[in-house]
């Protein structure tokens, strides 16, 4: 009887521990994928812009890339200082998306939200002291590290030169610099 109870206890403990490992994997897998993206793309370029060309069948950076978009990405680190992002905005679809270290898309600003031709964003980390912003948007990242991704609609590519020029107007830098 005692042996039986001991065996059941052991099985129960193993099941609980197995479930904890399973949940840990599920919870941290997105963070691992973001870390992998940072490592592959931006390990030497934190708070620096990386522009992609039009994607094609050789593009392997992200799964299921959209051939209808022209991307730019900044892997940010707001641990010690807010990050400032500036860009010109297009008349066609243009969206700036912010992703936390666990891949959550916690904020998006697109061309319809912005009245001016330019946009300035102050990106604060979770430990930053918020300051009053008068000349741009204040965005609060739930994690110190993450990624900002810009999507520009290529459409029929009649304005593709303008889209490439728009890439060049983008900056992403620590406020301290």
């Amino acid at each position, binding site marked *: 009887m005692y042996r039986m109870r001991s065996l059941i206890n052991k099985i129960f403990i*193993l*099941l609980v*521990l*197995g*479930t904890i*490992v*399973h*949940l840990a*994997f*599920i*919870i941290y*897998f*997105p963070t691992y*994928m*973001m870390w992998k*993206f940072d490592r592959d793309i931006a390990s030497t370029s934190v708070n620096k812009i990386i522009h992609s060309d039009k*994607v*094609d*069948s*050789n*593009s*392997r950076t*992200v*799964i*299921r*890339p*959209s*051939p*209808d978009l022209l991307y730019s990405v900044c892997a940010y680190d707001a641990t010690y200082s807010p990050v400032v992002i500036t860009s010109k905005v297009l008349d066609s*679809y243009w*969206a700036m*998306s912010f*992703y*936390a270290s*666990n*891949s*959550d*898309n*916690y904020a*998006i600003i*697109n061309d319809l939200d912005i009245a001016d031709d330019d946009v300035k964003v102050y990106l604060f980390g979770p430990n930053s002291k918020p300051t009053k912003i008068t000349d741009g948007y204040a965005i609060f990242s*739930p994690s110190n590290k993450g*990624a900002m*991704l810009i999507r520009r*609609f*290529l*459409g*029929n590519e009649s304005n593709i030169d303008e889209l490439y020029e728009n890439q060049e107007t983008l900056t992403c830098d620590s406020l301290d610099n």
Partner: protein
Amino acid sequence: MIFARKYLLYLIIILLIAALETFIAAKIYPKIAFVKNDIWTILPSPGDPDRNIYTRAAVAAVGTFASKKPEQAYYQTEIDIEDQPLNGNCLYKLSGEDIDSRWWSITAYANDGFLIENTEKLYSYNSETVNFNANGGFEIYFLGNNDFITDVSSENWLRVNQDENFNISLRIYYPGEEFFSNLKRVNLPIVEKVKCIE
């Protein structure tokens, strides 16, 4: 030594249980979480911060940078209207009507989730590049074999890999809040098999 071996065995059992639970979750989760609209499936909130841990993990495995509502609705299908897998040995016709949104696009992907190599470097059609027919609708053909070209009655066609399965994504940007409360019933294109290699 025997003691260490015993705990190593426990560790292996724990990892096997974790792997089994992950496998079961990967099999069951898509049936629960994905909303089905005829042949198309969609995760209602792929990028939202309040999504559950399984949605977050599933999205990370297949897309990483998913958008939150209402920026984008992202449907995909691996089957035709007869519930058969899409395969490059057959010719398929996708038929639909213009979708009320800022813009939309239809893209063919290989089984590995990447774009399919083709000399035309044409991977998708969007609401600006697709040729609409006289009724305001459109057709896009998917072919993996040049012999099918004579059966293509539209200027819109995309190359897929012969002998391989493929899948199609439908991205709809800014379809409006109402669209997201009606994901199961909104009118979407259909994909039907035209013919296969004999």
